[in-house]
C-alpha cells in the first residue's frame, strides 16, 4: 500500500549553529516563536477591529445619503489599502525595530487628516462638520495605529480609539445597521481582549513554562455574548423593556440625571419639536393644546355600541341595611343624572353613524412601560339586571398627599390596611395623552404614586373611583407625561397563599345580586361549573377558563334589536362583547359568594408596542371591560375572563426569560417549518460529518494558501497532518516528538510516516531547502503525504489504537518514550 516518496533535494550541512527563523532578539533575550505568532494574531485582530470601526464611521458619515454600492466601494478600497500597508509593515518588522518611526508616521496621518479638510473645502467645495472632522481624523489615526501595531501600545490605542468611534457613531447614527456593526465590534473586541491578554502573558512567562492560547474561547466568548443578546431580544418586547430597565437613561426609564445632555434619549431634557410635536417621546414642557377629542363616554360607545336607556329600580336579592339602601338610592340618582352608568342593553349603530363618530383609529394616549396592562377609568359595583352603576369615589377622609422624591412632586395614593403580602414588584409606566378629552387618569390597579412634572398642588387632583384619580380640570393636558407607580401582584404567591378570605366584611354591594330571572341561570351555571371544587382561586380560575375557552368574543352585538336579557342570551349563544364576559364572570362569582366589581378602562396591547419609540399606543378600540375580585382585606385582583387578554405579571426571572426565548425560537421555527427543517437537516449532516468537513476545510486552506518557501510548505503540511490526527482523537502530547508519536500509532503508511517525521524534523530544526532542493519535489512529496495520510487512514489508526488499548495491548512506543538500555531504538547507518 505504501509508496516510495523520493525527494531529490537535501538538507544542507552546516557547521554553524542555526538561528530560529522567527526568533528576534529583544534586549538580549530571545523571544520564542510562539510569542511572535501570538502577537501577529493580535495584530491581525486589531486590524480587523479597526476596519470594522472604519465601516461604522463610514456608515454613520453617509447618514443614508449615499448608495450602498458607493459605501461598499469606499470601505473596500480603504480596507485593501490598510491590508497592503499591514503586509508592508509586517515584512519590514526588522526595519521598524531598528528605526522606530511608528509614532511620527501616526502623527503625520493625524495632522494630515486635519490639514486636508481646508484643502478639500477650497478645491472640492465639500467638507465635514466639526464633530465629524474630529472623528474622521481619529479614524485615520486608528487605522494608522492598527497598521503600525507592532507593539502592544499602538494596538491598544487603536482599539481604544475604535471604541470611542463606535460610541460616537451609535449616539449620532440614525441607521440600525450602525448599531449592529457596533455590536459586532463589541463582540470581536472581547476576542481581542482575550488574545491581547494572553499574548502579554506569554511574553512574561519563565523559560520552561508554556501555555496555549485558548483559541476556542476566542470564538466562543463573543458567540456566547451574541447568543445572550439574541436570547434577550427573542424574549419579546417585555424582555426588551425589562432589559432596558437596567440601563441608565436621562429620564425616560425613570432614572434622572441632571447632567444628561439635551437631545439624548427620551428624557425630560428632550428638546421640544417644532413641526410635528407628536412624533416625539413624552415631553414635560410641551404646550397645552385644545382640540376636538373624544371623551371616555364617546370611546366606550364607539367601542361597544350605544346604550338603550331603560331605567330600572335596583332591587337587591338580599335585604340591605336601610341606611345603606338610602345611600345607594342617592348614589344611583346622581349617577343617572351624570349618565355614568353602563348598560348591558346596547343597540347596534348604522354604518353611517359609526363612520361619522369613529374614534378608534387614532391613538388616544401612549404608554411606556411593561405590557399588557389594564388601565382603569371606572369601577362599577351595583348591578340592577341591565345597568352597572359606578362605585362612589373614596371620601375626603382619604386625602391625596403630595411628596417630593428627588426634587420631583409625586402624588401619593393612600391605601387601606392589607392582610396579604401578595405584591412583589413595583412597576412604573408613563402615560402621554394625545387625543383624549377626560380628566380621569387611566391607571393600573394598585396605583400607588403619580407624577406630573411641575404640578405640585394636591388640590389639582381628586378621587374619581377607588384607585382612580382625576384632575380637577376638564381634561388631561396633552403630551404631558404622567408617571404612574404601581404594585404588581404575584399570581403564584396568590395561589399559594392560605389566607385568602375573598371578603372583608364591608363589601356588601360588591356581593349584591339583583332580583332578576337572569340571576337564576347565572347561579345554576356557576354551581355547575364549580361543582366539586373548593372555595378559592380554583373556582375563580375555572370560571375564567371556561369563559375564555368556550365563549367567543365579538366586538359588537350582532343583533340589530337590543336584547332584554343580554346575560342569558350571552350564556346561551356563547358569544358576545367583552362587557358581557366581565359581567358574567362578576355575577357568577357573586352568586358563589365572592366580592367582585366590574371595571372599565383601556387594555394596553403588547402587540402594538413600537420598539423604535419605546412606547405602546392605546387606541379607542382598546377600551375594555374586566372584573376585579376581592382576595382579602384591601386586596383586589384583576380577573380577566375575556379571551385574548392577559394580565400583567411580575417581570420574568432569568429562567423565565430563557424559556420565553426558547419558546419564541420554537414558534419561529414552526412558522418557517420548511426553512428550519432544512437548516436542521443541514446542521445534523454537518454535525455528523463534522470531522470530514473540518478536514476538508483545513485541506482546502492548505491547498489555496501555500507558503512561498519549501520550509513553510513542509510546516504547513505537518500542521495539517497534526490537525488531522487531532480530529480523530490522536492529538500529539506536548512532550512527545512527532517521530515518536507517529511511530507509536498503527498507521498503515510506514513510508509516509517516516517521510513526514523526517521532513518535520528538517523543517523545524535543520536548515531546510537551499539551492539543491527541488521546489517541485517538496510540493509533490507534501501532496503525496496529504493524500496517503488522509482522514480515513487516521480514522482507521485511531480505531485500531482504541481497540488495542481496550485489549490492554499497550503500545510501548506511544506511551513510554524513555528507551531502556536493552531496547534502544537507534537506527543504523547501513539499515537507513
Amino acid at each position, binding site marked *: 500500500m505504501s509508496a516510495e516518496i523520493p525527494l531529490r533535494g537535501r538538507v544542507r550541512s552546516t557547521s554553524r549553529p542555526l538561528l530560529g527563523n522567527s526568533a528576534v532578539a529583544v534586549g538580549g533575550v530571545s523571544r520564542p516563536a510562539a510569542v511572535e505568532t501570538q502577537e501577529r494574531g493580535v495584530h491581525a485582530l486589531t486590524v480587523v477591529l479597526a476596519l470594522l470601526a472604519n465601516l461604522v464611521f463610514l456608515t454613520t458619515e453617509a447618514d443614508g445619503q449615499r448608495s450602498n454600492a458607493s459605501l461598499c466601494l469606499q470601505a473596500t478600497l480603504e480596507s485593501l489599502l490598510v491590508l497592503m500597508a499591514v503586509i508592508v509593515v509586517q515584512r519590514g518588522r526588522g526595519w521598524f525595530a531598528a528605526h522606530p518611526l511608528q509614532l511620527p508616521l501616526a502623527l503625520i496621518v493625524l495632522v494630515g487628516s486635519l490639514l486636508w479638510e481646508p484643502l478639500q473645502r477650497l478645491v472640492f467645495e465639500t467638507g465635514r462638520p466639526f464633530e465629524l472632522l474630529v472623528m474622521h481624523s481619529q479614524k485615520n489615526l486608528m487605522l494608522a495605529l492598527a497598521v503600525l501595531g507592532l507593539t502592544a501600545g499602538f494596538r491598544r490605542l487603536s482599539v481604544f480609539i475604535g471604541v470611542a468611534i463606535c460610541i460616537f457613531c451609535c449616539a449620532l447614527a440614525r441607521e440600525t445597521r450602525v448599531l449592529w456593526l457596533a455590536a459586532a465590534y463589541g463582540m470581536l473586541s472581547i476576542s481581542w481582549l482575550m488574545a491581547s491578554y494572553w499574548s502579554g502573558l506569554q511574553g512574561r512567562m519563565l523559560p520552561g513554562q508554556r501555555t496555549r492560547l485558548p483559541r476556542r474561547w476566542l470564538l466562543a466568548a463573543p458567540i456566547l455574548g451574541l447568543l445572550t443578546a439574541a436570547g434577550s431580544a427573542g424574549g419579546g418586547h417585555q424582555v426588551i423593556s425589562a432589559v432596558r430597565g437596567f440601563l441608565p437613561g436621562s429620564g425616560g426609564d425613570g432614572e434622572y440625571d441632571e447632567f444628561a445632555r439635551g437631545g439624548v434619549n427620551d428624557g425630560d431634557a428632550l428638546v421640544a419639536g417644532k413641526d410635528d410635536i407628536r412624533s416625539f417621546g413624552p415631553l414635560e414642557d410641551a404646550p397645552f393644546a385644545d382640540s376636538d377629542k373624544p371623551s371616555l363616554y364617546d370611546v366606550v360607545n364607539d367601542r361597544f355600541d350605544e346604550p338603550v336607556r331603560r331605567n330600572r329600580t335596583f332591587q337587591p336579592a338580599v335585604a340591605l341595611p336601610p341606611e345603606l339602601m338610602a345611600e345607594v338610592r342617592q348614589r344611583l340618582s346622581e349617577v343617572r343624572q351624570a349618565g355614568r352608568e353602563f348598560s348591558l342593553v346596547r343597540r347596534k349603530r348604522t354604518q353611517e353613524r359609526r363612520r361619522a363618530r369613529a374614534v378608534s383609529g387614532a391613538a388616544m394616549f401612549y404608554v411606556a412601560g411593561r405590557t399588557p396592562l389594564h388601565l382603569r377609568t371606572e369601577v362599577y359595583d351595583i348591578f340592577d339586571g341591565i345597568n352597572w352603576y359606578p362605585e362612589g369615589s373614596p371620601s375626603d377622609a382619604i386625602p391625596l398627599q403630595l411628596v417630593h422624591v428627588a426634587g420631583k412632586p409625586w402624588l401619593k395614593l393612600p391605601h387601606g390596611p392589607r392582610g396579604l403580602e401578595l405584591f412583589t414588584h413595583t412597576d412604573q409606566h408613563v402615560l402621554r395623552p394625545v387625543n383624549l378629552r377626560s380628566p380621569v387618569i387611566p391607571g393600573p390597579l394598585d396605583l400607588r404614586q403619580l407624577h406630573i412634572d411641575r404640578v405640585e398642588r394636591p388640590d389639582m387632583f381628586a378621587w374619581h373611583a377607588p384607585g382612580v384619580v382625576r384632575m380637577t380640570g376638564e381634561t388631561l393636558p396633552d403630551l404631558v407625561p404622567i408617571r404612574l407607580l404601581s404594585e404588581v401582584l404575584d399570581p403564584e404567591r396568590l395561589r399559594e397563599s392560605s389566607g385568602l378570605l375573598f371578603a372583608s366584611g364591608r363589601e356588601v354591594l360588591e356581593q349584591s345580586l339583583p332580583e332578576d330571572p337572569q340571576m337564576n341561570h347565572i347561579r345554576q351555571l356557576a354551581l355547575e361549573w364549580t361543582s366539586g371544587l373548593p372555595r378559592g382561586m380554583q373556582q375563580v380560575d375555572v370560571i375564567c377558563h371556561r369563559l375564555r375557552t368556550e365563549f367567543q368574543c365579538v366586538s359588537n352585538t350582532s343583533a340589530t334589536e337590543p336584547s332584554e336579557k343580554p346575560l342569558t342570551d350571552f350564556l346561551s349563544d356563547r358569544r358576545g362583547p367583552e362587557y358581557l364576559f366581565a359581567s358574567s364572570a362578576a355575577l357568577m362569582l357573586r352568586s358563589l359568594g365572592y366580592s367582585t366589581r366590574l371595571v372599565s378602562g383601556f387594555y394596553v396591547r403588547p402587540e402594538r408596542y413600537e420598539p423604535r419609540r419605546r412606547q405602546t399606543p392605546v387606541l379607542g378600540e382598546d377600551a375594555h371591560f374586566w372584573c376585579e375580585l376581592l382576595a382579602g382585606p384591601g386586596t383586589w385582583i384583576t380577573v380577566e375572563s375575556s379571551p385574548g387578554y392577559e394580565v400583567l405579571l411580575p417581570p420574568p426571572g432569568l429562567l423565565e426569560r430563557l424559556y420565553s426565548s426558547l419558546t419564541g425560537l420554537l414558534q419561529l421555527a414552526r412558522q418557517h417549518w420548511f426553512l428550519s427543517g432544512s437548516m436542521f437537516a443541514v446542521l445534523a449532516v454537518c454535525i455528523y460529518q463534522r470531522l470530514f468537513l473540518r478536514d476538508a476545510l483545513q485541506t482546502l486552506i492548505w491547498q489555496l494558501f501555500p507558503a512561498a518557501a519549501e520550509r513553510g510548505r513542509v510546516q504547513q503540511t505537518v500542521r495539517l497532518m497534526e490537525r488531522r490526527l487531532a480530529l480523530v482523537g490522536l492529538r500529539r502530547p506536548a512532550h512527545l516528538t512527532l517521530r515518536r508519536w507517529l511511530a507509536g500509532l498503527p498507521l498503515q503508511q510506514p513510508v509516509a510516516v517516516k517521510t513526514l517525521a523526517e521532513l518535520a524534523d528538517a523543517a523545524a530544526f535543520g536548515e531546510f531547502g537551499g539551492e539543491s532542493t527541488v521546489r517541485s519535489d517538496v510540493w509533490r512529496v507534501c501532496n503525496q503525504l496529504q493524500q496517503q495520510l488522509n482522514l480515513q487512514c487516521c480514522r482507521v489508526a485511531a480505531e485500531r489504537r482504541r481497540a488495542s488499548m481496550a485489549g490492554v495491548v499497550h503500545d510501548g512506543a506511544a506511551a513510554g*518514550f524513555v528507551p531502556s538500555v536493552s531496547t534502544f531504538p537507534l537506527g543504523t547507518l547501513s539499515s537507513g
Partner: protein
Amino acid sequence: MRLMQETVLANTADSAVLDQLRTRLNTALRGKPDVVELVILGLLANGHLLLEDKPGLGKTTLARALAAAVGGRLARCQCTPDLLPADITGFSLFNQKTQEFEFREGPVFAEVLLADEINRATPRTQSALLEAMAERQVTVDARRYLLSPQFLVIATQNPVDQHGTWPLPEAQLDRFSMKLSIGYPAPEDESQMLLLATRQQLGTVPDTPLFSPGQLAAVQAAVAGVSASEAVRDYMVRLAGTTRRHASVPLGLSPRGLLTWLRVSQARAWVQGRSFVSPDDVQDTALPVLNVRLGLSMQECVGVVEEILSQTPVPEYTG
C-alpha cells in the same frame, strides 16, 4: 529509499569504518546491539564511558574490543586499593647517569585507558583521573603533560560487591559521558555463545585498528559540527532546569553535563545521517547521559527521566 540521500555523513570511508566497528563490537559482545550503539556514540562524542554491571557480563571484553578498534595504545589498569595516583599518571624517576629526573608516563598516556573495577581504587587514586578526563592533560611535579586528543577512559565497576570499594565522587561521575549497563544476554544469544565456545571461535576478535591515523579525530570533529537549532537548545536548557528542580534528584544536571548531552545527541544525529540535532536525539540519549550524573540508581533514574521528559514539552514543529 531514504528521504535525505546526501548528508554530512556522506563519507563512504567513515561509513565503512563505522559499520566495521559496529560489527566487531557486536561480535565481541553478542546480543547487545543497543549497548554497542551507545558505546559508539560515546566514542564519537569524545566522551568517557562507565560500564556498571555484574561480573562476567562482558564489560572488559567490550572495552578491549573498542580499544583495539580505535587503534593506538591500550592501557589496562586494574584498580585496587593499593593503586597509587602515580601508577596512573606516571612519575618522575631520578636518572643516575644523567643526574636528572625523567618522567615515566603512566597508563593515561595511552589512547584508550581501561580502568577495571574503578571503584576499588582509593578516592585519592580516583582523583588522579579528574584532570586527565576533563582536560586531557596531567600535571606531575608542577609540569603539564598533554594526553592524546582521542584519550578515552572506559571504566568498569561492579554494583554488587561493595565491600572494600569507594563510590566514585560526583565530580568524577560528571566527567563520564554515559553510564551503561550491559545486562544478561538473551537465552538464544547465550546458546549461540556456547556453540561458538565449542568451536573455539569465541573471542576471536581481530585486534587490528579500524581507524586510520587522524580519521577518528576527523569524525569527532564532524560530530561536533552537527548543528543544534535554537529550539532544540532551548529544549535542552528546559530539561536541565527541570532536573535541577525535581524533588527526587539530589544533584541536577551541570552545565558540563549539558554540554556532554549535546555532544552525545550530536553523535546520534550524525550516526542517523542528519546534520542537525532533533528532539528525538535528545530524548533517546537522555537516560544513559543522565544516569551517570543525577546521583540515582538505575531503576530510580528510569522513572525520574521519564517524568522529566513528560513534563517538558518538545519544541514546536510549525513555528
